[in-house]
């Protein structure tokens, strides 16, 4: 029964790393994990130890620890390698995690400033392209795809302008900023309206 404890310790560490932002995002979890990852991998990273992580993904702990229970040395070794693997996984995961949490931050700032006009209806959608500089300042907003409703489009632009500056983006490593946040696509699609 020693192993489960180790496993738990690792999970806690993972969680700590995973939350530069302590926001619970129930739905967000599965999606960001699946999608942003290939991206993080796609660009050449200066990490020599970047190993394929699919292995690490499905609960890395139980697998290696399952067989040799009597040989403690072997067990320790295995644990160490599992830990190393986990570390790599975490490193690789970090970018995606950062992107996810800072996206959540942007979401919050924009949604918190979005005053929908009373003519807004579910099903309307406007797409904005925004440009940011590393200070978090919005330097450009353009309507990439209009909803066809001027007041609705304007409400989305206003939301970005009112949010104005995403200061926390300054905390990001410039690699993560450049790869993900210099240009952003914001899709405004109200789902919480009555009509």
């Amino acid at each position, binding site marked *: 029964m020693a192993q489960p404890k180790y496993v738990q310790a690792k999970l806690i560490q993972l969680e700590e790393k995973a939350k530069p932002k302590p926001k619970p995002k129930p739905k967000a979890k599965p999606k960001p994990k699946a999608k942003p990852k290939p991206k993080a991998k796609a660009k050449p990273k200066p990490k020599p130890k970047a190993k394929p992580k699919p292995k690490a993904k499905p609960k890395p702990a139980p697998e290696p620890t399952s067989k040799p229970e009597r040989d403690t040395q072997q067990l320790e070794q295995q644990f160490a390698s599992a830990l190393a693997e986990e570390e790599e996984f975490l490193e690789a995961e970090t970018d995606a995690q950062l992107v996810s949490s800072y996206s959540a931050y942007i979401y*919050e700032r924009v949604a918190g400033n979005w*005053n929908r006009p009373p003519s807004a209806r579910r099903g309307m959608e406007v797409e904005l392209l925004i440009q940011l500089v590393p200070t978090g300042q919005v330097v450009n907003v353009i309507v990439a795809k209009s909803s066809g409703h001027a007041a609705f489009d304007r409400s989305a632009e206003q939301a970005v302008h009112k949010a104005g500056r995403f200061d926390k983006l300054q905390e990001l490593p410039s690699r993560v900023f450049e790869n993900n946040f210099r240009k952003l696509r*914001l899709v405004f699609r109200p789902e919480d309206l009555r009509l």
Partner: protein
Amino acid sequence: MKKLGAVFSLCLLALIYPLSVMAELTIEITQGVDNPTRIAISPITQNGSTLPEDIGKIVDADLERSGLFRPIPRRDMLSFPAKPNDVYYRDWRILGAEYLVVGNVDNRGGRYQINFSLMEVHSARKVFTKVVEGPANQLRDLAHYISDQVYQAVTGIPGAFSTRVAYVTAIPVNGKMTFQLMVADADGARERLLLNSKQPIMSPAWSPDAKELVYVSFETGRPAIFRQNLATAARTQLTNFRGLNGAPSWSPDGKQLALVLSKDGNPEIYTYDLLTGQFTRRTTHFAIDTEPNWTPDGKSIIFTSDRGGSPQIYKLTIATRRVERLTFRGSYNARPRLASDGRTLVMVHRDNGNFHIASQDLVTGDLRVLTQTYLDESPTVAPNGAMLLYATKQGNKGVLAAVSLDAGVKFLLPSRRGDVREPAWSPK
């Protein structure tokens, strides 16, 4: 107003296009807050000198009353720009303004011409510049026109500030009631007396061009329907039957009235051709059929009937004579009015023994109680469908009250004198 929940849904997609460099991170915003828009109306003057009416104040009050705007008080303003080029945006950002209205007035041979612009403060750009003109006695109309234009640009729905309201007041004079038919601007200003009577006046309704009213007056000793022109005050008596002559409603094409007559024994819905003077009976039922109101397409009439055992709302399709029940929730639904979308039904609805105004979406069937006042009566919807007026009681006095169709804005219009009842919002 909705608040952003603590738990929010975040949809994060890093879109990877196989052969494209367009790989911006995409964030989907699916929630918002819907607070009133902060707007500033810079004083609108004639090169600094004031006009008989304070245009900016009227626009301010109009927008505030809609509940969708929270104007910035003039005393907080750091500058009073009159033209787009005079605007120093930072002044307005500091105040939290999202929009700014600037304007100036020219006097051209006794006629006022107002140039006005709507500016977006955060993005520092102009939404529009428009011109409106009129004589000195129409300054309030010019102001309401500005309100309408600003409201439409920001909210995406037409404004209804240039409309009027007809209503009946009952004032005790030496222990006896005097009844007055009044018309006022939608903001309550420029109240005008149309008819003064010792006998009750009821059920005013507008012609579709908003130039005439029909109403029931008891001045002949029994209820009769009259038609009156607002500009000339000329009036004509249209009905003089025994029994009930009531609840006229003007058809959208202006050619007919729907009304209630009990000349054949019990109250039934009739139509009256204003050109030929011909009456046509439209319902045939031993129950009471009353309070007709046309659908916006003019093809049907909705009305109240107790044919199902309790008062409920029905729809009669004129061509087929088919009658269909529309309301099913609760044991009392009456005095139906349709918003101009033809989809939103408003009515008096009894809920836990209290009479409130409720709206029902005729497509989804959703019913919402909009008011929390008691003994609510006579709902009438603004032509833009954003707000309705109704009659209610404040203490033991009859007053008018307003509520937005999303129930977010509610206010009372205190009565200046006597009881106020039966409001009718003009169609334009």
